[in-house]
């Protein structure tokens, strides 16, 4: 790892202000992704701001019947929360489908949203990667692209977002709450719908979210329970502890209507509300709209029928 200085933040607003003051600073919470990348010198922060002591580790009920999940709630605790298991089961299921028990014990809610891609060319510092070194090119285009995006990518980048949790949060219409750096002690807060939180790569794949420099996630809120049956079906190369080739998060209502988002196919959790109008007609018409405009490679075009079949399986499961 490159040398860095280290501090423990005293409050969310102070953490944000400290981060904005030092352009090379990064927040560290669970560290399960950041330290991995620092060892490979893909991430080379000058300064780490440890946010673990900020008390953002509670899950509270909101006034409208939803939940506010603190940014530092560990993935294990979020998946095991009785209210999440009962009312937002797709989120528990998605979390439990990701990583290993050891990693889920450290990984946090906010850190999971901010995970970097596992594109092999992002990880290999000898290869061109516009996300890692803007302007260097994309080795994945025409390269080994089995894991990579079929929709939402660009000529600059076809990386996928690796999170399972974020796919469930997208289908649950979650909101990301943040505090921005400010001269005032209390900080300026904002709320970002999860649909707007992650950016598509375009020609700036190195910018992955709408967060501003120093802006700190403090919580993720879920609206009141969506009802219906909750499903998270993840298809991967091993039965456990592997990233998704395709995943389907779905909430299906008794009348056959519902919501669906896909993981493993795009640079962000992939959902299109217009596709959901087709839910009661089956997987094929849903996927025709949800994956409209897909530009798969020879190596990952299997994801299109795989996604459709995974959704068909989910819809069959929902019928019981």
């Amino acid at each position, binding site marked *: 790892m490159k*040398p860095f200085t280290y501090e423990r933040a005293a409050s969310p607003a102070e953490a944000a202000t400290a981060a904005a003051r030092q352009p090379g600073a990064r927040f560290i919470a669970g*560290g399960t992704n950041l330290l991995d990348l620092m060892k490979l010198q893909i991430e080379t922060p000058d300064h780490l701001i440890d946010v673990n002591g900020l008390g953002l580790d509670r899950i509270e009920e909101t006034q409208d019947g939803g939940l506010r999940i603190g940014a530092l709630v560990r993935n294990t605790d979020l998946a095991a929360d009785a209210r999440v298991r009962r009312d937002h089961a797709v989120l528990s299921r998605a979390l439990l489908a990701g*990583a290993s028990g*050891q*990693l889920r*014990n450290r990984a946090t809610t906010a850190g999971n949203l901010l995970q970097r891609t596992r594109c092999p060319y992002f990880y290999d510092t000898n290869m061109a990667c516009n996300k890692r070194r803007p302007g260097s090119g994309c080795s994945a285009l025409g390269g080994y692209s089995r894991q990579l995006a079929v929709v939402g990518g660009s000529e600059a980048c076809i990386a996928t977002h690796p999170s399972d949790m974020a796919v469930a949060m997208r289908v649950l219409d979650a909101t990301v709450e943040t505090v921005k750096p400010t001269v005032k002690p209390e900080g300026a807060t904002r709320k970002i719908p999860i649909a707007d939180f992650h950016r598509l790569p375009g020609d700036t794949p190195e910018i992955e979210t709408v967060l501003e420099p120093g802006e700190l996630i403090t919580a993720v809120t879920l609206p009141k329970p969506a009802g219906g049956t909750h499903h998270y079906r993840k298809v991967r190369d091993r039965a456990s502890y592997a990233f998704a080739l395709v995943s389907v998060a779905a909430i299906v209502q008794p009348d056959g209507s519902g919501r669906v988002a896909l993981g493993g196919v795009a640079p962000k959790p992939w959902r299109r509300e217009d596709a959901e109008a087709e839910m009661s007609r089956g997987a094929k018409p849903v996927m025709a709209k949800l994956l409209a405009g897909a530009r798969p490679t020879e190596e990952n075009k299997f994801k299109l029928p795989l996604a459709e079949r995974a959704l068909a399986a989910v819809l069959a499961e929902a019928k019981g």
Partner: protein
Amino acid sequence: MASPREIEVKRRALMAATVATAAVGAVAQRAGAQTTPARAAPPAMKVSFTVNGKPRDLDLDPRTTLLDALREGLHLGGTKKGCDHGQCGACTVILDGRRINSCLTLAVMHPGSEITTIEGLGTPDKLHPMQAAFVKHDGYQCGYCTPGQICSAVAVLAEIEAGIPSHVTADLNAKPALDDAELRERMSGNICRCGAYSNIVEAIGEVAGRKA
């Protein structure tokens, strides 16, 4: 026009100059990952935590992972460095009651924590029941992953007892079962290259009170 080789030489010369400047602390430049200038090592930081019941005080470079602090700082070599990237589980220890990958956390992040390593679970004269079960069931071959497997297994049984569900738990709202499918899924973060998995599952199952 300069040849690529000339450009490379110039780039290296520029890098060398940058390194020299950075060393006197005058440059706060951010470059691409491959050309990041060297930075001076940061001052050591103090951290105190409890390892296997003993209070320990360390002066560490903040870059030191908990794994390296245990192995190099405290000479507790039972915890193993496998991949050093959170993929193999050989470095699994129990931090404040929970199993973690000690390679993916910094020691300075854990003041006041209680850490249990394989050395704290049992001794050669008085094995922890999980250690004894691994011996009885031949739950290893080369043994390199074994300390991590055993720390993980001890924590897995506590997680099931606490009602924490897993990917294979059929009913999220019921108490998880103690069957092989649950144990295999929960142990998937511990890789055994020798392939002792079936014996590992038998060992854990016996400690869990199942008929072996």
